């Protein structure tokens, strides 16, 4: 299983064909007062600092520039989102100006990719180590940061970025525990007060097909929604095997997917996308994760840390709505990554079809947007229009939805939303330093206590 799998590939031509910044900015501006935010003006360049320069951080930076990328999820070694075009990107209005990553080699890889499209980041604007992000945030020129480290660090990074007066694009998920989710919500509120924008990497919210479907569902296309389903049934993802000389901390950071304190486990790290769609459609979040079943059945190698390989969760939402979630990372099984809703008067996949019990099938037939680029464009347009979007709460809620599901599975007990939101249980070491760090035990339902 060393073969690489290309998941998606978008061309720059495709990007250019769409009506983008100008139109989006103008239409947003048309109905908004001309309140300028900290750095916002239609001609103010967006100057981006990237915090977390791995595959996704690199990919997000390229997406922000509208550069074509090639996304590869290998079985072994890091996942990559590299430049997939020959020529340079010359954009005055969007620039990448600084990079930060704990590891120099990871930062350099990102820097090399940018170099290939004519963007050269000087050494003095490259920051490594655990404090690298702070140094990047201290660069006054930067007005937009991409947060793409392992999710554990997101809450602290978001808070620091907002305090430093930066607009933020942050990858999902945005936390791994209750205290982290609270911090994200607080930082989101602070951003509103400061007129700063926050977009999240739950990119389906920026995908035209989803937007069209969800709008219709919220307008009652299938009546009252009674039940939803969310799936991320996929294969194993990349593993970074330990190399000689690496401390526990270094290995866990480099192989972060497999440690709950870093990734939140795959129900949080990956499945959050699908749970986010459900929350979006329903316009609310669950009251509790009522039942959770799951375990670590196949992917048991120590190189895969201690996380589970499958989860099934039943959520109770307000108004007696139930949501059933299934997530799996096991090779050789059938795949399914999607959502579905059942209403009193029909069904839909929340994405590109709606089937009313009576009446005509609706299908999304337009050209879809590239949501990985669109999410940056929407944020930038909103900043320039003086009315920055703020997705902190929505993505924090979707992350917490996944966290209560994970804890219900880990413990075998119902986990209440409110209890997790108030939780004082913080995952991970209290100090970050390269050195010993034991791997947590595999969760054992009936014995493991929920992190509340």
């Amino acid at each position, binding site marked *: 299983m060393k073969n690489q799998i290309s998941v998606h590939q978008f061309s720059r031509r495709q990007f250019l064909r769409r009506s983008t910044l100008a139109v989006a900015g103008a239409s947003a501006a048309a109905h908004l007062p001309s309140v300028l935010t900290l750095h916002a003006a239609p001609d103010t360049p967006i100057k981006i600092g990237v915090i977390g320069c791995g595959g996704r951080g690199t990919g997000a930076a390229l997406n922000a520039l509208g550069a074509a990328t090639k996304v590869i999820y290998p079985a072994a070694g890091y996942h990559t989102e590299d430049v997939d075009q020959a020529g340079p990107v010359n954009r005055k209005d969007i620039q990448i100006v600084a990079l930060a990553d704990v590891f120099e080699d990871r930062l350099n890889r990102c820097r090399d990719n940018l170099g290939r499209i004519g963007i050269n980041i000087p050494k003095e604007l490259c920051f490594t180590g655990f404090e690298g992000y702070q140094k990047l945030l201290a660069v006054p020129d930067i007005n937009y940061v991409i947060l793409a480290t392992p999710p554990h660090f997101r809450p602290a990074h978001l808070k620091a970025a907002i305090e430093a007066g930066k607009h933020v694009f942050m990858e999902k998920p945005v936390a791994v525990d209750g205290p982290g989710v609270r911090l994200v919500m607080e930082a989101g509120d602070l951003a509103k007060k400061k007129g700063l924008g926050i977009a999240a990497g739950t990119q389906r919210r920026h995908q035209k097909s989803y937007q069209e479907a969800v709008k219709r569902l919220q307008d009652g296309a299938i009546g009252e929604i*009674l039940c939803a389903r969310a799936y991320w049934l996929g294969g194993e993802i990349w593993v970074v095997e330990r190399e000689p000389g690496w401390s526990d901390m270094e290995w866990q950071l480099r192989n972060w997917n497999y440690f709950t304190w870093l990734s939140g486990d795959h129900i949080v790290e990956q499945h959050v996308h699908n749970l986010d769609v459900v929350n979006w459609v329903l316009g609310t979040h669950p009251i509790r994760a009522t*039942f959770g079943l799951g375990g670590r059945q196949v992917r048991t190698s120590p190189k895969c840390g201690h996380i589970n390989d499958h989860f099934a969760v039943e959520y109770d939402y307000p108004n007696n709505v*139930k949501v059933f979630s299934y997530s799996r990372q096991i090779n050789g099984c059938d795949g*399914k990554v999607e959502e579905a809703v059942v209403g009193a008067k029909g069904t839909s996949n929340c994405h590109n079809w709606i089937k009313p019990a009576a009446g005509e099938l609706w299908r999304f037939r337009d050209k879809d947007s590239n949501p990985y680029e669109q999410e940056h464009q929407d944020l930038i347009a909103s900043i320039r229009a003086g009315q920055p979007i703020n997705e902190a709460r929505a993505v924090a809620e979707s992350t917490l939805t996944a966290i209560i599901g994970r804890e219900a599975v880990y413990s*075998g*007990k119902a986990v209440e939303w409110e209890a997790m939101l108030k939780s004082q249980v913080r995952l991970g070491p209290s100090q970050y330093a390269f050195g010993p760090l034991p791997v947590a035990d595999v969760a054992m339902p009936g014995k493991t206590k929920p992190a509340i």
Partner: protein
Amino acid sequence: MQINSSPNFLRRAPEASAAAALAFPFVSNGQAAQNLEIRAGIIGCGGRGSGAGANLMQAAPNVKVVALADVFPEKLERNRKNFPEVRDDHCFSGLDAAEKLIALKDVNYVILATPPGFRPMHFAAAVEAGKHVFMEKPVATDAPGIRQVLAAGEKAAQKGLQVAAGTQRRHQTSYIENVKSIHDGAIGDVLYLCAYWNTNAIWHRGETGDTEMEKQIRNWYHYTWLSGDHICEQHVHNLDVCNWVMKTHPVKAIGVGGRAALGSKSGHIFDHFAVEFEYPNGVRLFSQCRQITGCDGKVSEFVVGAKGGINPGGGGRRARGKAAGAASPYVQEHTDLIAAIRGGPPLNEAKNVAESTFTAIMGREACYSGKTVEWDNLLKNGPRLVPEKIAWGPAPKVSVAMPGQYRIS
């Protein structure tokens, strides 16, 4: 074949010739049927077999347990204490005990309560021998077993034999009333269903026995060919209710599951399953079953329609069949079967319970394999898990299913 005769039986059916008895020995109409003495043989004298025997004794007048069979002599002896009037020559142990009991001419009613892997062969043999059958759920552990049960069920109908199954909710007042109200449109069109059997871990008897076969049969719950795994052995009850509500069976299943807490204990079953079943009209059934101590529990079903939701068991005490004036469903199922034998409306639950069992098997295979499993394909092509010949010695080699690696056939 061991031939036994009983003066009591002959008194009840004096007109029956030996040849006729082999074909339709206990099917009759009119007054004779109404007074027919029920002469029951219990095959499988474990907890459920003994319990079913006790339930039977409360079910109707003129009922006797006259024969007992169990693979293990000590289990047989233990159950004989409950039925001291059973004659020595009507008590059988060993691997051919069931065969010998079924051959008794003076038995007209058999209770099949062995581990489920044996049910299809016992059911087929009992129908062949012209017995009315009460069979415990589930009724098979693999597709060939289901096919055998379905075929034997049809044969029972042709022969006028009555068949009841231990899916006792179908004999429980609360369920009967609620399912009827759903069928009458009380909640509108059914949009989705839930089924739960989330409980503590069940018994594990360790590894006792001289041969692998003996070890597996004594600890039968932990071997899929014997029990069907707990989704089949236990959760079949809830799945049966959902099929009853839907008046059909699902056509496909996807699922996740595993063995989290059982660890290195002998056997290979899972301790949790979560399955999404799909009915022909697209309606989903969300099923969960777990046997892990210390987790939250729930054993019930829930049906949601466009106009509301119903817990078909009624909740609370009624869910356990204790509605005022209602008999225990464990007794009622025998009462209903005996009424059918004695000339009431015919009863043949073989197809229902075979379909509910196969629903569970389909869910199990979906979780074991990590694949979408389709009813028609699995029923046609699903492999045989139960050995063709049961003998003390080696037993089916078993290993814990690994989704993505496990092959259904």
